[in-house]
């Protein structure tokens, strides 16, 4: 694989991570802003690794739902944190891929030797969501602002109509189709014949796995309490297939509707951050190297006209990543497939196993094949923790890095995250 014409690169180390417990929308963090949550998360990371007053190479984070005032969200959060005020920062946004993409960006700069350390993160609130005024009212208000005389002002004000006063609510739907993400996934689930029971099984296992991980202290050095919350409040340790079976479908229609509030992620508030560095930087600071970020790949699908499912892009990204690294789908010790919906995970895996799909859509001679389900989301995933869009990537990267570290050197993990807009990010971590 090594190409001697390329400049020498190195693999970025994942030192550790921090997140605040994730909270269902309009619960514990109802009054917290994105900046509050991201700042607290960075400060927790600083405390864990003794970075007070340190200037790290760069802090990269983002939010999917963002107020206009948060144009410089990450930099403002850095300024409010205990990091050195001289730490540069920038925002990124790739829907639910934001957190992982941020980690890839930081890792790439470290790989190129442009920075020695960096923090990648993400945050989202669906409670403190930005409300916008409609375009009609917005134009009136702009002309009011530009008016120079009292007459002009009155003229502008006279254009306001009661109907314009209804704000634009942020919606969890695709702008080009008007369909909610869940409705899109319901189409995919039907296409791939994903059953209700296997979705509920996956959801129950997510809750049980995550509850067990909390019990054995796995999250002790990954989570810092915030605003009185010490664990994700979406987590149901006593979740079971029987209980989940009682829920009514909320996405899709008719007989074949299988997706419920139990096997879909709820709207969630939260933030996460991951500390990445060169091996040398980590060693000089006496900090551990849990794993390295080996490689990553993004892909996008045409879900508008191309007939592909909205959340199927990771399926396309993976074979490119595997080929570039000379690996097969079975060469991993852990699989972290983001549980946007239980059916997303199941349709993703089914597609990788499907000879026709792999041949026709992915251009592969043979299907990628099945994965060992015992290695899938072993400490729970988004169905249990919840899914604050941009914060999910950081949650997964830090948790997987720790799992790999605990499993010993030479272990490999795969991350797959689907995102709105028909996009997806996949990445390989190795201890």
């Amino acid at each position, binding site marked *: 694989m090594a190409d001697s014409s390329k400049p020498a690169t190195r693999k970025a180390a994942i030192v550790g991570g921090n997140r605040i417990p994730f909270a269902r929308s309009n619960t514990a963090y109802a009054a917290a802003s994105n900046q509050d949550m991201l700042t*607290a998360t960075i*400060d*927790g990371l*600083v*405390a*864990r*690794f*003794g970075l*007070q*007053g340190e200037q790290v190479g760069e802090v990269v984070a983002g939010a999917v739902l963002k107020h206009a005032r948060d144009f410089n969200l990450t930099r403002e959060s850095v300024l409010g944190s*205990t990091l050195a005020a001289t730490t540069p920062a920038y925002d990124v946004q790739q829907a639910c891929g934001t957190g992982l993409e941020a980690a890839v960006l930081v890792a790439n700069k470290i790989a190129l030797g442009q920075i020695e350390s960096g923090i990648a993160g993400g945050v989202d609130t669906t409670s403190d969501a930005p409300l916008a005024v409609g375009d009609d009212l917005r134009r009136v208000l702009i002309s009011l602002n530009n008016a120079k005389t009292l007459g002009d002002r009155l003229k502008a004000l006279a254009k306001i109509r009661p109907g314009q006063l209804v704000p634009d609510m942020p919606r969890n739907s695709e702008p080009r189709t008007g369909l909610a993400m869940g409705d899109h996934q319901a189409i995919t689930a039907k296409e791939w014949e994903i059953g209700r029971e296997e979705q509920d099984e996956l959801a129950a296992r997510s809750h049980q796995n995550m509850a067990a991980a909390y019990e054995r*202290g796995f*999250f*002790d*050095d990954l*989570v*810092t*309490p*915030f605003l009185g919350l*010490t664990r994700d409040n979406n987590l149901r340790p006593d979740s079971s297939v029987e209980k989940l079976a009682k829920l009514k479908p909320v996405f899709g229609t008719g007989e074949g509707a299988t997706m419920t509030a139990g096997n879909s992620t709820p709207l969630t508030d939260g933030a996460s951050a991951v500390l990445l560095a060169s091996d040398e930087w980590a060693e000089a600071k*006496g*900090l*551990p190297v849990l794993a390295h970020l080996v490689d990553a790949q993004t892909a996008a699908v045409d879900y508008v006209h191309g007939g592909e499912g909205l959340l199927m892009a990771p399926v396309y990204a993976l074979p490119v990543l595997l080929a570039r690294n000379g690996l097969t789908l079975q060469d991993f010790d852990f699989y972290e497939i983001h549980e946007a919906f239980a059916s997303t995970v199941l349709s993703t895996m089914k597609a990788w196993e499907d000879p026709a799909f792999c041949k026709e859509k992915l251009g592969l001679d043979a299907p990628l094949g099945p994965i060992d389900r015992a290695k899938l989301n072993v400490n729970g995933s988004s169905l249990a923790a919840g899914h604050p869009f941009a914060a999910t990537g950081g949650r997964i990267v830090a948790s997987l890095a720790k799992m790999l570290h605990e499993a010993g050197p030479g272990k490999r993990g795969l991350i797959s995250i689907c995102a709105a807009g028909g996009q997806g990010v996949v990445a390989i971590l190795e201890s």
Partner: protein
Amino acid sequence: MADWYSNFANSGFGTTVTKQLGLPRPGVLRRYEPGGPLLEGPAVVGSAGRGRLRDTVTAVLRDAGATVVSPVVADGDASGEKLGAVVLDATGVTGPADLAAAHDFLAPAIKRLRANGRVVILTDPPAAADSPAQAAARQAVDGLTRSIGKELRDGSTANAIYVPEGAEAGVAGPLTFFLSGRSAYVDGQGVTLQAADVPATQDAEKPLAGKVVVVTGAARGIGASIADVMARDGAHVVAVDIPAAGDSLAAVANRIGGTALQLDITAADAPQRLVEHLRERHGGVDVIVHNAGITRDKLLVNMDAARWNSVMAVNLQAQLDITQALLDGDVLNPGARVVCVSSQSGIAGNRGQTNYAASKAGVIGMVRAWAPAFAERGATINAVAPGFIVTEMTAKMPFGTREVGARLNSLQQGGLPVDVAETIAWLSQPTSAGVNGQTVRVCGQSLLGA
């Protein structure tokens, strides 16, 4: 949490009222500030019998920048300059008759002691005496010190140091502590030294520079104060507390430039996880402060097993298990210090606290038993037993109980978390190497269990 009564008693009107009514008049305690003088006035040094420590004591005082005046001057004129400290070397006493010299020296000197003054008496441990008469004279120092402590007012304290033959090198550390503002709430106590390899000097401003210090229960209260003081004295603090307290723990760590480690110390794998953390992140540890503790009060007859077991697990078993793991894991750096937080309840007992008092008494037994093994590796293990310390916990006590509780000591006030922290930080210093297996009370000479 301000002591309203102390504030009142020290106000102009309050002074008149409390004096007229004969009410307690707590002094405003002199507490340590970096860069401040050791004493607020000159010191006088005297002897009873042919002592061997007078030169040592004088050197310690002079090195610290204190003025040492002749006892003759003190004896003569009671209207002269007020004294900051009175130090008596009673290592030479051979029998009760020699104590007359102690009286002759101390009475006029203490008369001239200023507010927040210090009385320190040094003698040999009674147990090592050559004769019953000598043992009696040495033991007499204990009663003498305690009584002086009770007679002193305005924040002054009296403490004793027992120095066996061969332990002279260890005098400077404890003597400096008892003279300084660090010992503001330590009164009527005695510390017995043992021979040890004691460094001649240490960095006066940053005695813990370069040291890695673990503090359990560091998220709030006394633990947070210990973390503050350790960091002020130059240490890198690994602040440990339960994961549920992680947000305040992170705030403490960030305030002092330390690191936060969320760990339930009662978890089965906690000792091993701590050992691995210290090895991986710091290559070892210099000081561990077992501060984490809980109360689950109930009269014994009404106490369920959960209350009993949880208090034992946190307050005693975790201290034992973690200390053992640090020894087994070979992560204790040379000259390591273990400081365990006991309690006045562990000495005096307390109604409704059978579980707590048992666990805290257990701590005293633990450090005593472990001391020889620590001495062998040039390390020490000691305990501190706080008395009435003003914290969020005491703020919730009923008014009457709190106010009476706070006055039942020679200093007539509750201590502050920083007073406990200063004592622990002192035991952690390099020059405290001669203090081992001891339990030092930080109680203002409480009447309870004395």
